[in-house]
């Protein structure tokens, strides 16, 4: 306490120094008293005063001691450095502006990207939650129950199954993402409700009274006005009231989506009410992979040990149910990886890392610029520094002074960078597509971001200020002072540090640009991928007859009527109905080609099933390769038929044409005959490998939830209203859960890569500009330093052309060395990266050539300006310069 009080007093003393006069007065009193005493003892006046002074130990020394105690000397020196630094920076506004701006661009780019990465990375990856999964897709509910009951490694195991519900009773019926979850779902995740409660332990098992739901925060906030009174009230999902029991915490995204969105969680005991069609039939089938699972490892249990233990269980389950579990096992992975679906998470992490890498390089270039500028600045200030050293300033003091200046620069750069990031974030945000708009993703400059920026600023100021500071603090005293402070003719070749910085800068710029270029190239390739169907002028409307509790006869009739009605609307070319929306994935079933079945030990392969109405291929413009499409003649009572995609034929009957082949699905012995082969088309995402697809006639394999697909003659937006009205005239209670054009879907799918491409191009340009500034700075410094030498050469008969050649030569030598080094490093680096990119080679010669040429041109330009100045040097003026 006492020490603290003293510290504050001293701090106050530092900021507001008390006049020393009071102490001087006190000291003077002291001396006089002492002198008088001495005189009384018999000394002469002069001797008395001298003795008093000697006893005191000197007036100035005492004052100094007193002052040190009055203030905080360390802080005082710092304040001095600060004031001095600020004065220096003000005195060189050009230098300050270039340094701050350079850093601000680098730091701004980093902060912007960090803001995005920061927002993406809110999954609590540290929780010890892991997912047990079989064959990538999940496990059957039966197996899950066995694992949950018998495992010894998890404190508990939870299950979830993504599905959708239609919420009616609001302004208009809406389709919501929902997860059927085991009652312990939230407990295992270890999260607390924002409002209300989560599920009771028996709400997924007790016979009834389980019609309860937990809402996501986004749903509660966006659609229910954050009404706290909603708890305990019913909401209608799939025409059935569910009591809202709780609200999940803000930002909680569930286990299946990457973005937090409007969704609901319902206990698995409600599966019969929520699920429709085959999912409902198969939910309790031990073979059907329905649920994703995750558990919390018991304390002290390692993931590898847990996996081994679960694999043993899997072996037992396989032995017990060979037909269902044949060939199946489990693997564990951290939930954070699985949350998005393993592939998505990797890709997003990769994109994030790539971006951070590129902006990191940009920052590095900016830092090299800073170091360069500081070096030049240090050289210009040699005289001042030598003077200070000659006057007795220690080296540490000089280094500290220079470091204070570089820190001032970098902190200012950080502050401006933050402003740039703020603007950048707003621009990025204004380009967000609608699907992110609803996600509640939070791109705020939070404390993490601020800390990040501060950290980057301090580090850059320190690291890149240190070398120039140390170098500046070690001037050759005598030589510099003798040379009259002009530093003489510092020869280019005798300045390896500065040359190295230019080389490094060019190399960094090359690596950045090559990386950005390859990434852009890869994205272009991804966009060129064939969809397999015509995406233009295609409209899709999702609806769910299951929610209206239609039985099959009524449903089939509805489909026929809908097609008939919409077909005759204006602007419509053709119409079909399919169970799978375009690029929207689909239901998977295990296919057994005729002659092989479960009993023979053949495991079958999961294949996407698409139930379609006639006209499907015509509407989507998917070409038939062989055989025939479905028609109205394919009915319940006629022969059971199917159409295979080319990839499916290749998978099951390689080297055959597939026509006339027969197969059956797991658990369904009926043989289906292939009557046609269709060209491959995209199932899940743009750029995927061709997927095997089997098409079945909707008339023979009814599903209650479907997508109406409309090929329009003009822009599909014009047809939305009439199509919607046509459907609703058939049943006014029908919820059209989603209306979209395929172009929309594509732009959504390609939004992230496009945005990434724009950003990369932007950062590439930034790297280019920064490195050009760096080369220009060093060369013009060098020309300045060589003014006398150039003047001398010209006086001795050198032509302007020669001078030009001399300076350009210096610049080019460094540029070429830098580019060479950059190419070598880039080749190594990109070899690693390219394996993650799409369809691009590490040494794509066009990218390298283009970028090398570009950089050379920019460097030439940067050299040309100082070279021209050198050329104009008037020998007489230069020689008389001193």
């Amino acid at each position, binding site marked *: 306490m*006492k*020490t603290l*009080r*003293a510290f504050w*007093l*001293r701090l106050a003393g530092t900021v507001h120094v008390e006049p020393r006069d009071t*102490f001087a*007065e*006190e*000291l003077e*009193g*002291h001396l*006089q*008293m*002492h002198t*008088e*005493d001495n005189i009384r003892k018999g000394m002469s006046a002069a001797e008395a005063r001298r003795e008093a002074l000697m*006893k*005191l*130990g*000197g007036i100035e*020394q*005492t004052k100094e*001691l*007193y002052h*040190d*105690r*009055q203030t905080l000397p360390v802080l005082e020196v710092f304040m001095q450095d600060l004031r001095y630094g600020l004065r220096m920076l003000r005195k060189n506004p050009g230098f300050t502006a270039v340094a701050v701006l350079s850093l601000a661009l680098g730091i701004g780019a980093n902060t912007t990207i960090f803001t995005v990465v920061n927002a993406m990375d809110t999954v609590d990856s540290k929780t010890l939650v892991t997912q047990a999964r079989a064959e990538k897709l999940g496990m059957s509910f039966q197996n899950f129950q066995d694992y949950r009951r018998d495992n010894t490694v998890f404190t508990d195991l939870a299950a979830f199954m993504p599905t959708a519900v239609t919420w009616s009773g609001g302004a208009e019926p809406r389709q919501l993402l929902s997860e059927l979850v085991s009652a312990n779902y939230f407990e295992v995740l270890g999260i607390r409700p924002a409002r209300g409660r989560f599920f009771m332990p028996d709400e997924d098992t007790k016979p009834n009274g389980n019609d309860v739901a937990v809402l996501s925060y986004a749903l509660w906030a966006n659609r229910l006005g954050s009404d706290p009174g909603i708890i305990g009230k019913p909401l209608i999902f799939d025409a059935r009231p569910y009591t809202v029991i709780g609200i999940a915490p803000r930002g909680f995204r569930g286990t299946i989506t990457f973005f937090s969105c409007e969704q609901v969680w319902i206990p698995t005991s409600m599966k019969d009410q929520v699920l429709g069609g085959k999912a409902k039939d198969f939910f309790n089938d031990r073979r059907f992979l329905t649920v994703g699972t995750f558990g919390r490892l018991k304390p002290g249990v390692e993931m590898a040990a847990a996996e081994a233990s679960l694999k043993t269980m899997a072996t037992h389950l396989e032995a017990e149910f060979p037909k269902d579990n044949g060939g199946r096992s489990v693997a564990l992975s951290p939930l954070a990886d699985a949350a998005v679906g393993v592939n998505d998470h990797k890709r997003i992490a990769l994109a994030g890392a790539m971006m951070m890498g590129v902006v990191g390089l940009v920052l590095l270039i900016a830092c090299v610029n800073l170091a360069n500028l500081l070096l030049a600045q240090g050289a210009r200030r040699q005289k001042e520094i030598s003077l200070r050293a000659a006057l007795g300033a220690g080296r540490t003091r000089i280094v500290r002074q220079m470091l204070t200046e570089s820190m001032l620069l970098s902190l200012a750069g950080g502050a401006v960078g933050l402003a740039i990031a703020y603007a950048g974030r707003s621009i990025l945000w204004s380009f967000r597509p609608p699907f992110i708009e609803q996600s509640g993703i939070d791109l705020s400059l939070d404390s993490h971001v601020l800390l990040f920026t501060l950290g980057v600023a301090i580090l850059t100021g320190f690291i890149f200020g240190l070398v120039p500071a140390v170098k500046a603090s070690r001037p050759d005293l005598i030589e510099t002072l003798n040379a009259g402070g002009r530093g003489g003719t510092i020869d280019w070749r005798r300045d390896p540090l500065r040359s190295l910085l230019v080389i490094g800068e060019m190399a960094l710029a090359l690596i950045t640009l090559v990386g950005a270029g390859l990434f852009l190239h890869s994205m272009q390739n991804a966009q060129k991928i064939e969809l397999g169907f015509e995406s233009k002028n295609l409209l899709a409307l999702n609806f769910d007859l299951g929610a209206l509790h239609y039985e099959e006869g009524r449903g089939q009739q509805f489909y026929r009527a809908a097609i008939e009605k919409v077909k005759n609307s204006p602007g419509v070319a053709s119409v079909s109905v399919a169970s799978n929306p375009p690029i929207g994935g689909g239901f998977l079933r295990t296919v057994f080609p005729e002659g092989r079945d479960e009993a023979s030990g053949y495991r079958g392969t999961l294949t996407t099933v698409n139930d379609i109405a006639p006209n499907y291929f015509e509407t989507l413009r998917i070409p038939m390769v062989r055989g025939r499409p479905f028609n109205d003649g394919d009915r319940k009572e006629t022969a059971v038929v199917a159409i295979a995609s080319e990839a499916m034929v290749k998978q099951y009957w390689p080297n055959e044409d597939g026509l006339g082949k027969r197969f059956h699905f797991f658990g369904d012995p009926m043989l289906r005959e292939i009557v046609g082969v269709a060209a491959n088309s995209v199932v899940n995402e743009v750029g995927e490998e061709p997927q095997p697809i089997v098409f079945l006639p909707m008339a023979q394999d009814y599903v209650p939830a479907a997508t109406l697909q409309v090929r329009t003659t003009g822009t599909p937006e014009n047809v939305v209203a009439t199509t919607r009205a046509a459907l609703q005239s058939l049943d006014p209670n029908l919820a059209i859960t989603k209306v979209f054009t395929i172009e929309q879907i594509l732009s959504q799918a390609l939004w992230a890569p496009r945005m990434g491409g724009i950003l990369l191009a932007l950062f590439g340009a930034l790297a280019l500009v920064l490195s050009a500034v760096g080369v220009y700075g060093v060369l013009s410094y060098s020309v300045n330093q060589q003014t006398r030498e150039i003047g001398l050469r010209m006086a001795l008969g050198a032509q302007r052309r020669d001078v030009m050649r001399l300076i350009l030569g210096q610049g080019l030598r460094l540029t070429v060395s830098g580019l060479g080094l950059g190419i070598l490093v880039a080749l190594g680096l990109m070899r690693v990266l390219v394996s993650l990119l799409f369809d691009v080679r590490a040494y794509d010669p066009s990218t390298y050539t283009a970028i090398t040429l570009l950089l050379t041109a920019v460097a030439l330009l940067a050299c040309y300006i100082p070279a021209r100045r050198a050329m104009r040097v008037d020998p007489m003026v230069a020689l008389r310069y001193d």
Partner: protein
Amino acid sequence: MAEKVDVWQGTLALMILKTLEALGPLHGYGIARRIEQTSGDLLAVNYGTLYPALLKLEQEGHIASEWGQSDNNRKAKYYKLTRAGRKFLGREERDWEQTTAILSRFLAPGKESA
């Protein structure tokens, strides 16, 4: 000339406080003289070091100061013990006695082992 020892900071603070306790409010010069006298000239104060020590004690709240008149009508700054300073002194004295008692037992080990 008697061999003189520099006064180190902590002891100096203790001596200042003790002086102020014994003599009441006193100016810097008076304190210096008093310390020099009591220590029998063995400890020659480099008087200048007294003032930072006084400032430190004041900053810590052990003493307070105000301007007043000296005996021969000279303006001088007088220091006096505060309540906190008195308590602090009591504590320091006990500590000091304890330390010296222990040390003296070490320095005269013969008696102990006999």
